[in-house]
């Protein structure tokens, strides 16, 4: 009962914050509210027992992404346009696609059931064997760092490459300005 109440409250807060992002006049206000959106998302991940994901969402989504968007805004000098009138065609498309997505979720297995396909593949082996094979209590760390170590290596390379790309872009622009 308590869990449903928290879920409903968090989802309602998510909806309110999302509407606030759309409705806010200034881009700075929209970016800050978007950070709050990420923070509420992090709360939802906690209710799903995905604390590692919630941690990342709070740190990256609410913190770093907000800061980078603000910095980009400062660099580009973006100005918000006057709040546009409701675009009925776009609203129909968005509601249609949203309705289809909600309809699609009706075929999904219920959240948290033990015999869901997602819990039948490799998850039981990780849960049963990782204590013996890896010997650390946080199974998420075991999966990310050891069982799926190759994937995590790929993620690190992606982050490195992204940083390299931004550095090359911004530092070359600077050199032109300096000359």
């Amino acid at each position: 009962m308590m869990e449903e109440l928290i879920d409903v409250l968090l989802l309602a807060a998510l909806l309110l914050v999302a509407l606030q992002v759309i409705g806010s006049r200034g881009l700075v206000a929209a970016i800050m509210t978007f950070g709050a959106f990420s923070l509420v998302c992090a709360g939802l991940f906690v209710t799903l027992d995905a604390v590692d994901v919630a941690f990342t969402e709070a740190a990256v989504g609410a913190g770093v992404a907000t800061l980078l968007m603000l910095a980009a805004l400062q660099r580009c000098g973006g100005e918000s346009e006057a709040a546009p009138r409701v675009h009925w065609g776009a609203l129909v498309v968005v509601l249609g696609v949203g309705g289809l997505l909600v309809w699609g979720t009706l075929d999904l297995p219920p959240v948290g059931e033990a015999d869901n396909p997602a819990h039948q593949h490799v998850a039981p082996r990780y849960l049963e064997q990782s204590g013996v094979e890896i010997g650390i209590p946080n199974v998420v760390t075991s999966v990310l760092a050891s069982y799926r170590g190759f994937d995590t290596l790929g993620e690190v390379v992606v982050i490195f490459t992204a940083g390299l790309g931004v550095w090359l872009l911004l530092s070359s622009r600077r050199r032109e300005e300096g000359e």
Partner: protein
Amino acid sequence: MSDDLILRIVSKFLIPVIVLFGLYVQFHGEYGPGGGFQAGVILASALILYLLVFGSAAVRAVVPLAWLRWQAAFGVVLYAGTGMATLLLGGEFLEYGVLAADPVAGQHLGIILIELGVMLTVSSTIALLAMLFAGEPDQS
């Protein structure tokens, strides 16, 4: 760069706490939530707070941009190098069990090494992004 006295003093007090929490998340990631990625972001956020309050010249006095670039590359090398080490020791790529006589101890050592690599790359990349976006233009 802020001249606000309260902001400067509070952030001076907060930055060591943030760094300490980042290291806690790094080295406690095997027991609680967290790990190299989250720790890297938290460590970078300490540097970003320093950047916001004291300006990019002050940050560059602490960590030069070149250092951040080397650190980002070194993290990837440390991760992939751990994989190469397991290959050379006769295991498969990233099979940490061969790193020590006891497979479980090897797993621990391997996870610590690759999480360190993740933390180094993530923290320096995010700090570098913030420096490039938010810092004043420089000649580097």
